[in-house]
């Protein structure tokens, strides 16, 4: 059986290819949007993976440390080390801020980590260059996407840090690079007030009769000292002994230490359902709109192409061509347009994804699903043109 659609495409291939390229760019944008969503999910999962933790211990009645702020005393980890099933427990702080290097600022998630033995949760597990933090102050390990160089000096608040190591794919849930610094420095950076604020606070304390009692001369100095230091962290990351079940270890901590504990699964669902949910829905809506726009464009193109063949269709019908042959021709052309568009879209998306500022993950399964979605959209879009073609009166081929 002769393929009318194939012959028409070969005859006017330029028109089809150019139309397919236009459609392909739109499909490329759609695939990239799906990739942006996948990238967000992957960023969140990678962030959890990089902690190396099995449990996140946070302030009671909070969903910290990523979805809400959480504050714990920094000596709690010692008690946690004595809980059943716990192998390691390490303090961690998270602070999203602008890190200066040279004349530029980089938006980063500054992570305060305990400089412990290998296996301590919180630190990056693998480095691509340099070494881990070994000193208690002024050393940093940065993600390579921050653009920092090994040995470079970067500024966080008022202090300078030397980049001693570079890691890869250590990013926050919103794709910002992570910069790891010693815990003490991070605690200071998180709560450090400027000098003017400190002077103001000391003046207020001195004027407060509760803190400045004539009978207790050292009280004011103690209060001032306590307000200049920070003994809080955002969370304690817990790594369990081999064979321990996360829920079994979490339950006693919740009950006896009156703290909130999240397992990896729970933390992942907090990130997905609460932190990136709105962005994900935004992207999903964008995908739906792009799909509708693609369908409308394909429908319009196929309708226009069919409109240009009304006389030929009337002749075909008059000489006895079956309706399904004519419908098949239009649908095949629509599908062919979709295939050309998908190939162009996939290629362009693959080429332009690396220049996106945030991580875009094009998954093969998404491409397969996208391919079938494009075919379904093209098949649906051709229905308008098919309806018009089937309504063509064969009498149009006869004059009068």
């Amino acid at each position: 059986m002769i393929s009318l659609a194939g012959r028409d495409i070969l005859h006017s291939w330029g028109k089809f290819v150019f139309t397919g390229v236009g459609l392909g760019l739109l499909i490329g944008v759609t695939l990239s949007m799906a990739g942006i969503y996948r990238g967000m999910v992957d960023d969140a999962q990678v962030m959890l993976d990089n902690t190396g933790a099995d449990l996140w211990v946070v302030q009671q009645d909070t969903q910290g440390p990523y979805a809400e702020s959480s504050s714990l005393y920094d000596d709690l980890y010692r008690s946690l080390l004595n809980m059943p099933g716990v192998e390691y427990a390490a303090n961690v702080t998270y602070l999203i801020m602008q890190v200066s290097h040279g004349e530029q600022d980089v938006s980063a998630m500054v992570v305060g980590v305990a400089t412990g033995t290998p296996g301590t949760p919180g630190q990056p597990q693998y480095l691509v260059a340099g070494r881990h933090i070994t000193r208690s102050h002024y050393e940093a390990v940065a993600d390579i996407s921050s653009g920092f160089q090994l040995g470079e000096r970067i500024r966080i608040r008022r202090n300078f840090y030397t980049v001693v190591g570079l890691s890869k794919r250590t990013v926050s849930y919103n794709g910002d690079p992570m910069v790891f610094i010693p815990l003490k420095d991070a605690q200071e950076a998180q709560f450090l007030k400027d000098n003017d604020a400190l002077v103001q606070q000391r003046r207020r304390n001195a004027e407060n009769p509760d803190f400045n009692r004539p009978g207790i001369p050292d009280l004011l100095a103690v209060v001032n000292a306590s307000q200049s230091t920070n003994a809080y962290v955002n969370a304690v990351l817990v790594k369990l002994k081999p064979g321990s079940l996360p829920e079994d270890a979490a339950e006693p901590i919740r009950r006896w230490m009156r703290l909130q504990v999240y397992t990896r699964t729970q933390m992942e669902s907090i990130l997905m359902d609460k932190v990136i949910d709105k962005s994900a829905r935004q992207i999903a809506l964008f995908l739906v709109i792009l799909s509708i726009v693609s369908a409308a464009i394909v429908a319009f193109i196929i309708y226009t192409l069919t409109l240009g063949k009304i006389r030929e269709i009337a002749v075909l019908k008059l000489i006895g061509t079956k309706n399904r042959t004519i419908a098949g021709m239009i649908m095949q052309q629509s599908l062919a347009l979709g295939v050309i568009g998908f190939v162009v879209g996939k290629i362009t998306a693959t080429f332009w994804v690396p220049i996106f500022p945030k991580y875009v993950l094009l998954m093969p399964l998404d491409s397969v699903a996208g391919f079938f979605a494009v075919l379904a959209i093209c098949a649906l879009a051709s229905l308008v043109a098919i309806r018009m073609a089937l309504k063509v009166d064969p009498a149009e081929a006869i004059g009068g």
Partner: protein
Amino acid sequence: MSGKGIHIEGLKKRYGEGDTAVHALRGVDMQVAPGEVVGLIGPSGSGKSTLLKCLGAVIDPTSGRMVLGDEAIFDNDWKVHDLQALRRDKIGFVFQAPYLIPFLDVTDNVALLPMLAGIPNSKARAKALELLTALDIQHRARAMPSQLSGGEQQRVAIARGLVNRPPVILADEPTAPLDSERAMAVIRILNDMARQFETAIIVVTHDEKIIPTFERIYHIRDGVAHEEVGEGRRFE
């Protein structure tokens, strides 16, 4: 394919109802024998196109009887069910403009109908080439329609109309866009094909050049066909 040609009895066609009804055909009787070419003439609005559309199974008559070949296709309230198959197998069409499919070459334009009917492509193309040879246009077999002259396109259109060896060919102003020489060539071909394939051919025309070539003419006036004897001049 031989048959009984075309046989029409009391064919009527009315558009609309009541006071606004238009009686386009008011009881047309017509007979065209296999191998015969007759002319159908008449002024605009006389009912020629309506008669052609009824014969082409494109519109239903209001009443009357039509037999194409050896098969009744309309008999008052009854009509053939599969009109597409009827048009494909029993009727060949040649139009005022050739209306060739622009994305198929000459051979495939002619072979299209048998291909769509399920005949293998190679056999359908062989059949088409045979006809193109009969019409002396085989040297243009691989050309696209846009590369042909008007006369060549019309010969390809005739070949397409004949390819399924239908008992009836309906030609609607087939010489209108052609000069005298080419118009006469087309009429000669239609006569040759009618004799060779025993096909009954009706040629609707206004063309004064070709009217004298018909031996019989049906002249339609106000929806009624009057049979006239033509001059039957030999082709020059």
